[in-house]
């Protein structure tokens, strides 16, 4: 019978957990720039292509 107390409490706790995640995300600056990450995401594929390039060795030296 008291299971409803338990369930509602759990659901509220889960909701609070999501809310905390949101606050954390805002604090970390995730919403300050909503454009660049979308482009950056696509670049990772570009970089992987590089080892095939002839200039590979040089790149490594620089790092």
């Amino acid at each position, binding site marked *: 019978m008291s299971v409803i107390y338990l369930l509602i409490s759990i659901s509220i706790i889960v909701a609070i957990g999501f*809310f905390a995640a949101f*606050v954390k995300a805002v604090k970390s600056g995730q919403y300050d*720039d909503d454009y*660049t990450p979308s482009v950056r995401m696509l670049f990772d594929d570009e970089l992987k*292509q590089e080892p095939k390039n002839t200039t590979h060795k040089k790149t490594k030296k620089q*790092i």
Partner: protein
Amino acid sequence: MGTNTCFHCGLEIKRADEILFGDKHFCCNGCKTVFEIFSSNGLDSYYDLGSPGARPLENQNKYDFLGNEQIVARLLQFNEGSIQIVNLSIPHIHCSSCIWILENLRKLHGGISASQVNFHEKTVRITYNPEVVGLKEIVGLLCAIGYEPYISLENYDKGKTQQDRTLTYKLGVAFFCFGNIMLLSFPEYFEMKEYWLDQYRGFFRMLIFALSLPSFLYSASGYYVAAWKSLQSRMLNIEIPIALGIIIMFVRSVFDMLLDHGPGFFDSMTGLVFFMLLGKMFQTKTYRFLSFERDYKSYFPVAVTRVSNSSEESIPIHEVVTGDRLLIRNQEIIPADGILFSPTAAIDYSFVTGESVPVNKKSGDKIFAGGRLNGSLIEIEALQTVSQSYLTQLWSNAIFEKRAERKIQSITDAVSHYFTPILLLIAVSGFGFWIFVDPNTAFNVFTAVLIVACPCALALTAPFTLGNVLRLYGKSKLYLKNAAVIEQISKIDTIIFDKTGTITSGTKSNIAYEGAYLSERKQVWVKNIVRASNHPLSRLLYEHLPSGPTTAVEQFNEITGLGIEARIEGNNVRIGSAEFIGKASEKLAFQTVVYVAINGIVFGKYRFHNEYREGLSDLFATLGKKYGIKVLSGDNEGEQTLLRNMLPKGTELVFNQKPDQKLEFIKNLQSQGHCVMMIGDGLNDAGALAQSNVGIAISENVNVFSPACDGILDATQFGRLDQFLQLSKKAMWTIKMSFALSLLYNAIGLSFALSGNLLPLVAAIIMPLSTVTIVSFVTLMSNWYARKLKIADEMPKYDKYHGLPQNRKVILDTQIKV
């Protein structure tokens, strides 16, 4: 890329300067170097991303001041041992290749450990090890690859600014509360008599009450403060009924809950708070890469080179005192009024006056701060400190102080001026009526009136309409400081234009030849001669003249301040001022002219006009019918007749205006009751822009400097000014229509409330319903008007960041290849 365009920057290659490197063609050495840097570090993919790069700057000494640790320390964001972080603003960032190359800076220099681009703000945040690489080297590297950072006095003074995220938090809290309360209220909306719901009612209500507290106490707090402030200043703001509504709603709900009358209005209250914060959020769209608060500080350099006893040192420009000898290099800004010591100098005042043709100065001439040096290095002696200079003095005018706190009564405030008293009257008379019928209902009616009439929809109308129009303007490249400016635009009756750089184009000069016939062969002679000269007028003339075969020029002699003498194909050619070619100076000398003499015979002169912007006469003709139009110019009357022909009759032309006179002129008009819009461009208009009701700065490139203003208009959109003005009027009309609609809702709600049967469910339906209809109504209306006025409809959907769709496509193509 074609063979005629540079592989790196994509610009057309002038045949004489072409550089071949491998199988690639470059327009200049700089571009070739960038390519070399990129390719030797494995960053060739830059060129696969499609968009052309920027031509690098040749002037490396410009950032010598970054060797000064004191100055560097002020610019850094983080400075701890072997880690330094700097946030540099790079106006050139415009496409995905820019992001890519800047985020791979660490491949170009080992000392850089990370770099992160913020595209909207056009900044890059670089983390580096100061023991390996200095900021000066990094900036040098950025310049070398064509991404010159914009370091100004502003960065120096600003320090670290933290972004204000309060509204986001408040909105998050409001949504959290609203959503959960909505869910927990569902049982109450439907059947109340069921056994197990009855059983847990208390628990549910307690939870709802607890959840409503953060929304009531935190999210809505801004409204209480605003209401309290407006009460103190005896203004009946829209915030008063809102705050009153929220508080009454909360108090009555608590009573209802405690006395077990019903579930209360917690759901409506949190919903209302959420929707209103959403409206606020929508209205605060800002163009973060633009700054509307710039003064001379963001334009002036951080440091300048001082010469003393033949030693040079970089000093912060605050430390410049009268009598200091300053060294100014090519493309540097002159920070303080001074006297020229070097023989000659060409100074470009385009940022100050909008005049595109540089001014020539001779040794001993006074030079005003704000000009940019064009040509080789000069030495000046400072006559004034930086803040006391002719131009910068303007900022000591009180208007720059006043502007920040100027409060404009908005249309919403005007309506609520009537709304609030009427609302209170209805509430009290409802209470007065019911108290004789049923005292219990009387309290209910009183609170219900205040709850249902809480002007949620009314308060949302303006933010959503203006916020939407702000976006529409932004798509058409008119960037406004905030939504309130739109309301101001709709009210103006007088438009004042600056001349140079505003109605004339800052970049183009129109050259006309007058005099005896000059054969094409002779024109080519002139072209060949001016080619060797670096004088700004020579450059303009070179661009203008028809191209022909290159002929050897002999005995080339450039006499600074006068002209050029040379022999070509055995003929003596002199190009220059009237005195130089032996002609009496004409009295109409209000214009810039260059004379040409061949073998001692004066052939004629090239006259340099400012080019007027396209569609200017049409625009003035249309605007002239509706607004008072005036032209204010800092120039002399040189082009008065030309202007008169172009402008509608009755246009007032005022010449020879100093920056502060422009300001006074507008003040004068305002005291006659006019609502003035000032359209200007340069620093010398800054005072007028600040004084006017709406100050719009015209900019050839919105990423570079523009003075403090209410809005920045891209120069290419100048001809559409009339449409912009009309849209603002339509926006206000939309708001008025929507006010009528929301008052209708209020009337319906009030009829429920006054008859004493406002159920929480009814309130929970009416409020979101009115909000949704109002928001969609104003959005649709303003979009419809914008389409009718042809604003923001011809732009492709993704054009916001020039050329993005193609780049995306290129990236996707390479992905497929992999």
